[in-house]
Structures are given as structure tokens and as C-alpha cells.
């Protein structure tokens, strides 16, 4: 029940990509390997397997799911989410964990495509001239 096109359609319903705010364009989940990641995870995750099988079944088969429109797939997944919220959250978390770890996605968000260490990030030193009005007001702590 887990054809490649079905897996791609499933993860793309979770993270479809495309043009989003601030002039950014995000890749679809299947373009960054979320479908293969899901297929791998299914092998040893029984709860996920049951969920994915049930999505296919409710769609009338994997091909029917793949052929249906993005809106139809979204509506079907919303129904599945309300039936099996915990398992569905697991599917979303697995897909997004892989998605937002991909260099293409981080770059598309204008964020460095590397882990935080060892490079860290540059930030300008604190400018204490900002505190002028706070200091002019004087002490405000409650004496007791």
C-alpha cells in the first residue's frame, strides 16, 4: 500500500512548499527526500504503518489518493487527524523533522544550512546608549 507516488503525495500534503511570505519559495517535501524518509521509518514503526494504510484505504487506494486534488487530500487528512490525532501528530513530526533539517529548506528560509556549532552566529554588541531614558527616570525598586 506504499507506492512511491503515494508517499510523495502524502508528504507533499504535509509540507507542499511553494511561494510563501516575505518573497520566499520553499521546496515540496518530496523534493527533499521526505517520502523516502517516511518509507524507511514505516519499516519499524507499526503505529505509523497502520496510520498510512488507513489513509490509503480511506482514499480508496494509493492511486486514488495520488490522483485526487490537493484540496481533497487535505480534507481527507484533516478527517484522519481528528480520528487518530496522536498517530497523525507523529506523521507530521517525522515529516517536518526531516524537512526542516534539509540544507535546501534552511537556505530557502534564508538561514545558514549548517548546525549552530561550531560556527555560531554574529550579533552586534549591546549598545548601552539605548538605556538613557531608563536611567534618567531613576531608581524604581520598592524600598521596604
Amino acid at each position, binding site marked *: 500500500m506504499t507506492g512511491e507516488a503515494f508517499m510523495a503525495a502524502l508528504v507533499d500534503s504535509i509540507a507542499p512548499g511553494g511561494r510563501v511570505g516575505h518573497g520566499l519559495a520553499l521546496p515540496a517535501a518530496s523534493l527533499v527526500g521526505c517520502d523516502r524518509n517516511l518509507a524507511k521509518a514505516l519499516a519499524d514503526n507499526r503505529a505509523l504503518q497502520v496510520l498510512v494504510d488507513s489513509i490509503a484505504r480511506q482514499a480508496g487506494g494509493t492511486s486514488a489518493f495520488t490522483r485526487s486534488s490537493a484540496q481533497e487530500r487535505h480534507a481527507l487528512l484533516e478527517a484522519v487527524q481528528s480520528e487518530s490525532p496522536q498517530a497523525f501528530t507523529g506523521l507530521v513530526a517525522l*515529516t517536518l523533522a526531516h524537512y526542516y533539517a534539509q540544507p535546501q529548506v534552511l537556505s530557502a528560509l534564508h538561514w545558514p544550512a549548517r548546525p*549552530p556549532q561550531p560556527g555560531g552566529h*554574529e550579533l552586534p554588541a549591546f549598545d548601552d546608549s539605548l538605556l538613557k531614558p531608563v536611567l534618567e527616570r531613576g531608581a524604581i525598586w520598592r524600598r521596604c
Partner: protein
Amino acid sequence: MAKQRPVDIVIVGTGMGGAAFAWQLSRLAPNLKILCLERGKWLKDRDMPAASAGWQSAAFGQWATSPNARLAAGGNPWSADYAIDDSESPLKPLMWNGVGGSSVNWAAHFPRLKPSDFLTRRLDGAGVDWPYSYNDLEPFYDLNDAMTGVCGLAGDPAYPPKPQRAMPPLPIGRAGELAAQAFNALGWHWWPVDAAINTGPYGGRQACNNCGPCLQGCMRGAKSSCDLTYLPAAMANGVEVRSGCIVLRVTIKNERVTGVTYADEDGSVHEQPASHVVVAANGIGTPRLLFASGLGRDPNSVLGRHLMMHPVAYARGLFDDDLDGPAGPVGAALYSHEFYETDLSRGFVRGFQIQVTRENSPLAQALRLSPAWGPLAQRDLAEEFRHSIVLMIVTEDLPDAENRVTVLDRMEPDGLPAVKMRYALSENTKAMIDWGYERTSEVLRAAGARREIRAPLPPMTGWHLLGTARMGDDPRSSFVDACGRCHEVSGLQIADGSIMPTVGAVNPGSTIGAMALKMASELAEELA
């Protein structure tokens, strides 16, 4: 059961309370044989996830801040976690159960309480008064600052004068600057935070490079944690730290402590005689161990009661400008104490602080959206990521006897009884959050936010676990005296956040360390 060689003092737990206590006592009473027993391990090679591709998802698995989440992910090798039944608490308990305690995964915001926090009953008719004052604790705050290594700026008008901080303040970023300008426009107080983070070399540790995910531990050692500060100094004074040792019971004979029983890493059980036992196992671990030791049985005992957690509420402002994203230590960059003190016309007693914190990783921000999936979720994420200012309302939590930690009639695999927390928000806190949200809206509007998103009471914010063995002069309403000595038995002292009678509206680490230093000085004097 193997019997160990007797020691003078056993300290249970190596977090801020236990580690500061061990160092101070070892320095002031060098002849004492002091042994720290810690259930978790030393972090090996500072092997945290910040340098790995999976750093974002690690925060939801083995490196989650919640012990329950770590256990669900198969456990973390350094943190010897136990399950906590939190089904009756909207806020979930967070901690680290390894050497260094919760300072390993804390955000290291390092504020002090204020003089009024010690006198809430006398000043405002709420909570209870401490058995001592800010002035009594002040020298120990200063000593704790020096040992911990604090960056910041002296001269905050919302506090009595503090000594020069050892290092300049953290960068506040573009988001911090916008928020600061908004506070200025409103004529409200703000100040850059005191943080237990190196902004330059200090204590043999290097400076922070603003990498971001401090709550998964600091690989660089720039963030102060007790495994890097107090414990090595205590060990240099002769203190022994036995890690991987779970204390199962404080042993008591004729109302006097005789030592502890503990299980080592292999599960072998040892009897450890000691003249004096200091428990610093955190606001949940401490009552759990003491209940297991047969204490707090009287139905009127306050042991386990008055759990305080500082409920928080977030307001995010969205901006067109490019801001910082998750750069800079994830805890607060600056705070406002404009609404810290009581003004009854607001509809509640006591007050709150507003912290300006930083953004999280893209995954963390994506997962907390509702819905978290589909085209709208991705649009929302792009609107928020690198374009938001995060304000956090941190409320003063007043003691309520019904908010409590209890043990259940069932044992956990670690050999201690199962533990449960029950917690409900007071009407006072709810009113504070509602009123606070009107203020954060003013800040965000003044900063030019396009849109505001509110997230009251996210569950994973149970950072502060306090008040469950409270201190006071009257044994009927407190569990320990002003020196942390248990009223029920002699030779037992408590040296962690459990003993705080009230908690102000600020993070507790600095106060826990200062209290432990003070109590250790008093014990050293007593034993001299």
C-alpha cells in the same frame, strides 16, 4: 547490602543547590569528609547535538528538556530520568538528572529576587514572608555571581545596587533593540539581562558564540553549569562525587539521620552512614525522596505542598523587517520589571516581568503552529521565522497548598515510589496574564508589529519547580527552618528550590545558589 565507610556529610544531587552547598562547605570546613551522590552521569566530551545535522529534532527526543519526553525517546545516557505523572498539571516538569543538575539544560538567565519578594505577606497581604531578608542573602548572591560567572550591566534602577558584572551584557539583537525602543517610547523600564553566560573568557571557559540552543546543553562550556563551575572547585577541595548513584532513602533512627541508602549503577545497594544529610534533588525529587524515607506522613505536613512554577504566556509580534531568527542564547535578552510590584487597581496582587526572548529553530516553530501542516502552516512559518519578537510574561506564582507533589502506591524501576504533580492556575495568575497581554500588545504595537500571536501557558514551560518543602520559623506551616534544617528530624537539611516560601516573578537559579551558600556557611559555623 554493602556498608560504605562513614562520611560527615552526604549531599544528594549536584544541581545548583547541592553543588554550591558542597563547594562552600568544603572551603569553610576543610576537615569534613563530604560525599555528593548523584543519580545521573558526567556529560562526556560535551557531546551535545548543536554540531550535528539532527540538532533540531534532538530537542524533541533524547535532548528534550522534559524527562518524560527523554524517556519516551529511549532515554538520555547522561540524565538518569524518572517518570513524573503530570496528567493533572497543565505545565509539564522540566529538568536534567545528571551531574550539574538542571543547570546543564537551563537558559542561564540569572536574575535576583528583590527586597519586596521576601516580604509579600507584610507588604501585600499575599503569600508568606521569608524568615530572612534580601540584605541577609545579598553577600551570597555576590559570591554566587563570582563563582558562576555573570554577564550583564550593573545599575539597573529596578534593583538595589549590584556589583559590576564580570562580563559585558549579551547582544540583544535587532529584535531586542526594537523591543527596547518600544519600552522607551512607552516610558517603561527595561534592562539587559544578567546571564550565567560568558561574553568573554571567564573561569577557564570560552565566550559564547551565539549559537542558540542552550537548552540542549552548551558544547562550548560558555554557559555556566555546575559540572563546570562549583563541582570541579569542590572536588579540588576534596569533595567526592559519586555519579550514577540513586539515593533510595534517607535513613533515620530515633528522629536523627544516620545516613542514606543508595543503589549504584549496577543496581547494588549500599548503606552510607553519615552524620548529616543534605537533600538537593529539586522541587520534585526532594519530596519524592523524603516521602520514600517516611517523612511528611502527618496529614498536616506541608511536605510536597505549595508547588510554584511561574506560569508564562507568550506574545509574538510579526514584523516585515528581517530580524535575528534563532541567533543568540535562547533565553531572555532583556526584561521589563515595570509591572513587578503590586497595584491592586490592576485586579490582582503582586506582579510579573516581561522577558524579551529569542526565536527557536525552524522545526520547533513549525511544530507549535496550529495547524502544523499544510500550505497555511508553511505560510505562517515563513511569516514568523526571522520576523518575530517574542515577549514572555513571567508571572509571580503564589503558594497554594493544593498545588503539590505526592507519591503513589507503586514503585518505579529506579527503586523509588512513583511521583505525581498536581497543579492548577490561580484566579490571580489568570488575571495577571489577561492584564499582562494588554501590556505586551502595547509593546508590540509601539515596536511596529504587523500582527500579534498569543500563546498562553504552553505546556513545556515547567522550568521552575519550587516551594515543596518550604522554609519558615513555624513547624506547623513549614518543613524546614531558616537554615534549611528539617523540623521533623535532626541532621537533615534541604538546600534546593524546594525551600523557597515564595518565588517572586524571576527565574530561581541565582537565588537557589545564594541560599545554598548561606546555609552551608551556617552549617560550617555550627560544626566548627
